[in-house]
């Protein structure tokens, strides 16, 4: 049996394992494991290397079949990814599904928006290719191919695809587009039952808050933070006494669909919380993945630029001690190169007034209103305030 893939594995060896993978359960589970950001194989690598490795493994699902536990990773990439190689890989991965479901279509349409202005030639023919490469493709071409593969189930995408006919495209993308349109228009019965004519705008609802974080162990109460103004406090200081919403981010993130959007949504969450008169009932915080670099002025500028209104109960934080305990408790989906984060998922949590996770929202984009509702419903600590959910509303009403 081959050695475990780990921190010391060579990239080429990982690629060889991916190439050799077949549809057997242990091989497929090896590939699924490679989807996790925290996999040790990504430790110490560059972002480019994680894109190569993860993308190469993801694309292999087209060949070996995409199991349900891996579907979420592909959808996440289509919804929020901006790297042409990973988006192409995710589109390929969907073609490893058994059922051609129309609920995939919104994710593919989102992917088109994400990459259309900065697409690139990519190739999955071999790992670490040299250029010019044989039979390169593009992210858009792979998304179009997957829409074509969905056939009549992708009818929802036809207007968008038709718009693209008028636009100049690279030959490989153009060919995929033309074929996709004809495959979708093919007379045939959609494989799905006729009960659901429209695509659910929040498909995979159950996955929307997916990858439930086990929250085993105790919250990292003694972790220490510094906030955007350089004020020092502990996890216990901030996260106990009231329920809170906490999100993770870092200022050097280059994907606007991830950290920039997360903080923008946090600001929106604060606004809605204030509109409900709950600003003092629900705390909000964003904790950086990159505490040694994200010094207070960087946190402040990043928050200010995205509409965050700072207050005692609303802060951006960097851990000055105990970040590992935080990462463990929240099972953070993040990994690091030598100097910076190399990849991460989207993650937000609702905590009760004891700093314990009550709900987690990971990978797919979270909805501001949904997370706010969860925070309002978060169990209160009887010993401390004795306030339950209704009292929270009551308190808000008298503010």
């Amino acid at each position: 049996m081959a050695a475990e893939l780990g921190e010391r594995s060579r990239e080429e060896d990982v690629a060889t394992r991916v190439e050799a993978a077949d549809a057997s359960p242990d091989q497929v589970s090896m590939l699924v494991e490679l989807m996790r950001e925290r996999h040790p194989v990504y430790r110490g690598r560059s972002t480019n290397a994680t894109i190569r490795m993860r993308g190469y493994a993801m694309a292999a699902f087209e060949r070996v079949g995409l199991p349900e536990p891996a579907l979420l990773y592909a959808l996440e990439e289509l919804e929020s990814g901006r790297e042409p190689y990973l988006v192409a890989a995710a589109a390929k991965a969907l073609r490893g599904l058994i059922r051609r479901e129309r609920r995939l279509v919104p994710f593919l349409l989102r992917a088109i928006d994400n990459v259309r202005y900065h697409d690139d030639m990519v190739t999955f023919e071999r790992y670490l290719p040299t250029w010019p490469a044989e039979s390169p493709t593009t992210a858009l071409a792979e998304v179009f191919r997957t829409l074509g593969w969905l056939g009549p189930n992708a009818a929802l995408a036809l207007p968008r695809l038709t718009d693209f006919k008028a636009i100049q495209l690279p030959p490989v993308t153009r060919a995929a587009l033309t074929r996709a349109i004809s495959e979708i228009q093919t007379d045939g019965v959609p494989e799905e039952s006729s009960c659901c004519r429209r695509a659910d705008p929040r498909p995979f609802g159950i996955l929307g808050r997916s990858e439930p974080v086990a929250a085993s162990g105790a919250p990292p109460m003694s972790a220490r933070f510094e906030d955007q103004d350089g004020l020092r406090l502990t996890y216990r200081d901030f996260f106990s006494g009231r329920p809170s919403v906490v999100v993770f981010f870092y200022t050097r993130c280059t994907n606007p669909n991830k950290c920039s959007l997360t903080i923008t949504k946090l600001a929106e969450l604060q606004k809605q919380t204030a509109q409900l008169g709950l600003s003092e009932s629900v705390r909000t915080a964003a904790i950086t993945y990159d505490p040694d670099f994200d010094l207070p002025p960087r946190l402040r500028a990043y928050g200010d630029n995205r509409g965050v209104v700072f207050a005692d109960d609303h802060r951006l934080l960097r851990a000055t001690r105990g970040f590992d305990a935080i990462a463990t408790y929240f099972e953070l989906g993040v990994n690091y190169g030598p100097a910076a984060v190399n990849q991460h998922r989207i993650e937000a949590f609702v905590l009760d007034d004891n700093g314990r996770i009550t709900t987690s929202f990971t990978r797919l984009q979270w909805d501001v209103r949904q997370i706010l509702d969860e925070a309002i419903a978060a169990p209160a600590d009887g010993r401390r305030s004795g306030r339950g959910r209704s009292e929270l509303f009551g308190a808000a009403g008298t503010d």
Partner: protein
Amino acid sequence: MDVSEYRRRTNQQVAAAAKRTRQEAPRNLKAASATLERREAPEGARIAAVRAMGRDIRRRPTLIDRLIALLADGSESAKLRLEALDVLQGATFLVQTFAAKRPQYLEALRSIMDDPDRDLRRRVIGALAREKDEYVHRRLLEGLEKPSKALVPPAKAIQFLGYDVHADYFPLLRRIVEQPPTASAQREAIRVLAADPKSRPLLTKILGDKDQPSGVRYMSALALQSLAPTQFEGIARKIALDNREDHRLRAASLTALAQYTEPQATASQRAFTRRVEKLGERASSPDVKRATKAYMARVRG
């Protein structure tokens, strides 16, 4: 100034320019395309033709295809291909128009990374590096590790790699700082280490080591200043007042303190400011004198 006379004069200039534009053959797209296709035409005329095509890209995106082909054509002169590269790179600012051609453009750039012409190679690599291209990263790293495979000098390679700090080259850069292939590579390595919080001790050590060359210490100061500003301020105060220190470093320290600290905010800062004031009277270096003067001007608001 007489505004109506100014208007008359400006109108005249514009009218003359409009006439000139109409008469200039290279601005006529058809003529320009024909000139480009005539390989025997003078190089200057063909370069002007490429530029003229560049002006029309938004209206005729298919011109991009011709220019990409020219860029990739190793049988054409490097000067002409450089012109095509500049025009295409300018067209990347036309995001929507260029989107359709971007994959082929990047593919072409990757395919000519090894071009024998030094300027073309560098500009191609620079364009890809700013896109954080994974292939150019691999090639640049390979060149740093095996000099026989280097596409550009080590300092330039490090600079290009620095466009992407989500990288794994930091241990390599620390080695380069310790055993630099060139002085310039050492300075660039230090600059890029500013992205790495773990390099703070190394940067601090270099800045405090008077045996290091002045340029190397200066670069460490810049790196620390952005990585660990508070720590830097303490060191900068010591350097500023030490008259055995390098002049340039002292002046830079004073300039940084003037720009980024409140000289009168605390008792210790006021004490420091009093010492700077005295320094101005004694300093022999013109740079230190100027920096002292600027510092004191800041104090006086």
